[in-house]
C-alpha cells in the first residue's frame, strides 16, 4: 500500500474573475462527491484567500464561457495545470471530468487506504518506548534525535487502539477512535487513572492474563487430553481473552498475536541497545570535534 506518496491532483472550483459562479446545487454536489472520492478541493472567489498551490498537478474547473481563468498567482510553480470548462455540468459530471483528468495524468486513485494509525502527542510523550516495545507490527521507530516516531503507519491494524492503552501518559491518539482521550479529546487526570484507559503493560502481557491463560490451558489440556485438538485450545484462549477484548476494544487478531513476556522484554532490550548505540555514536562524533579555539570563545 503506497503510503507516504504526496497527493498529485488538487481540484479548484474557480468562481473568480472570468468565470460565472456555479449554481449552488451544482457546487455543493460537486464538492460533496469530490471529497467523498478523496480529492482536495479549493473554492476560489474574487478577493478570497486560500492556501497557495504546491508543485502538484492542478485542475481548474469553472464556467469560463469562452474565456479562461488567470493562472495561479504562485510564481515559479512548475506543476501541471489543466483547465476545464464545466458550464452546465452536473455535480456527477464534474466528478467524471476530474476522474478523466486524473486517469490521463496517471495519478493514483485517492482513498485506497483507511487512514488508521497512532498520532503522538509530544506534549505528553516521555519517550518511554513502551509502545515501541509493545507493537508487533513495527509501526513505531526512533528518529535521528532519539525521539519516538510513527514510521510505518500502514502497518497499523485498523480499529486497534491497543498501544494507546499501554501508554502511561495517554500520549497516543487515534483521531478516528470513538472515545476520548484516545480520539484526541483533552486528557483529564481521571483518564490516567481509569481502568479502561490505562492498562499496565505487565498486567496485560505478563500478569493476570497469562496466569489466567495458563490455568485455563491446564484445565483445557485435561479436558482435551484425549483429543489433542489444538483448535479447541485456541478457542479456549479466545474465550479467555474475550472479556479483555470487550473492555479494551482490541481486535481478535491482535489479541491472539500478543507477544509473550519474554518477547516484550527482548524487544525493549533491543530498543534500548539501539538507542544507547546511537547516543554513543553521537557522543563519539562530538568528541572527535577539535577543542574550541580562543576565537571560538571570542577571546
Amino acid at each position, binding site marked *: 500500500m503506497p*503510503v*507516504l*506518496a*504526496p*497527493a498529485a491532483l*488538487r481540484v479548484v472550483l474557480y468562481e473568480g474573475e472570468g468565470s460565472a459562479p456555479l449554481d*449552488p*446545487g451544482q*457546487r*455543493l*454536489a460537486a*464538492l*460533496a462527491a469530490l*471529497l*467523498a*472520492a*478523496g*480529492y*482536495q*478541493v*479549493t*473554492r*476560489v*472567489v474574487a*478577493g*478570497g*484567500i*486560500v*492556501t*497557495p*498551490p*504546491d*508543485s*502538484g498537478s492542478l485542475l481548474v474547473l469553472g464556467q469560463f464561457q469562452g474565456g479562461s481563468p488567470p493562472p495561479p498567482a504562485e510564481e515559479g510553480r512548475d506543476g501541471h495545470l489543466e483547465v476545464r470548462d464545466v458550464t452546465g455540468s452536473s455535480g456527477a459530471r464534474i466528478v467524471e471530468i476530474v476522474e478523466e483528468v486524473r486517469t490521463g495524468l496517471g495519478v493514483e486513485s*485517492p*482513498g485506497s*487506504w*483507511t*487512514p*488508521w*494509525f497512532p*498520532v*503522538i*502527542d*509530544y506534549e505528553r510523550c516521555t519517550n518511554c518506548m513502551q509502545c515501541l516495545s509493545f507493537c508487533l507490527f513495527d509501526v513505531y521507530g526512533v528518529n535521528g534525535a532519539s525521539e519516538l516516531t*510513527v514510521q510505518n*503507519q*500502514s502497518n497499523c491494524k485498523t480499529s486497534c487502539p491497543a498501544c494507546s492503552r499501554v501508554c502511561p501518559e495517554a500520549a497516543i*491518539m487515534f*483521531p*478516528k*477512535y*470513538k472515545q*476520548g482521550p484516545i*480520539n*484526541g*479529546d*483533552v486528557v483529564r487526570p481521571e483518564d490516567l487513572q481509569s481502568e479502561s484507559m490505562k492498562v499496565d503493560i505487565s498486567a496485560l502481557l505478563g500478569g493476570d492474563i497469562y496466569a489466567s491463560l495458563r490455568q485455563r490451558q491446564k484445565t483445557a489440556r485435561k479436558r482435551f487430553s484425549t483429543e489433542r485438538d489444538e483448535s479447541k485450545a485456541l478457542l479456549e484462549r479466545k474465550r479467555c481473552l474475550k472479556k479483555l477484548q470487550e473492555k479494551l476494544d482490541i481486535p481478535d487478531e491482535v489479541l491472539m498475536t500478543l507477544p509473550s513476556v519474554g518477547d516484550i522484554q527482548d524487544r525493549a532490550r533491543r530498543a534500548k541497545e539501539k538507542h544507547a548505540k546511537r547516543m554513543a555514536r553521537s557522543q563519539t562524533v562530538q568528541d572527535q570535534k577539535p577543542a574550541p579555539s580562543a576565537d571560538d570563545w571570542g577571546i
Partner: protein
Amino acid sequence: MGRTSQPEDARVVYCNCTYAKVVPEDVKTEVLTRLSQSGAAFDAVADLCEMSARKDPALERIAAAGPVRIIACYPRAVHGLFRAAQAPLAGEQVEIFNMRVAAAVDIVRKALPVAVPVKGKA
C-alpha cells in the same frame, strides 16, 4: 459563541473526515452546505489523517501560509496530525473547530470571515 480571535482574512480549511464515520454526518453536511452557499473562498480536504500519513506537502502549505481556521475534529489530534507530517501548526496562527462536539451553525458563524446569509440546505 462569540467572534473568532483570528483576523478577518484568515483562510478556512474544512476536513471531510471521509474515511471514518466519527464526525456526525449531519454536522459535516450542514457545515459543508453552509460553506458552499456562502460567498467565501475555502479549502476542503477529504481527510487530514490520510494526508498526514502520506506527509502530503499540502499540509505544509496550510500550516505555513498565515492565519487559518481549521474545521475538523479535536484540536490535540489536528495539531498531532500536522506535526506528524513535519508541518507543525503555529499556535497563534491557527484556530480549530471541532465538528465532533460543536454545532454546525456555531462553527460556521465563527469560522467564516464575514457573516454570509444562508438560504437553507440544498
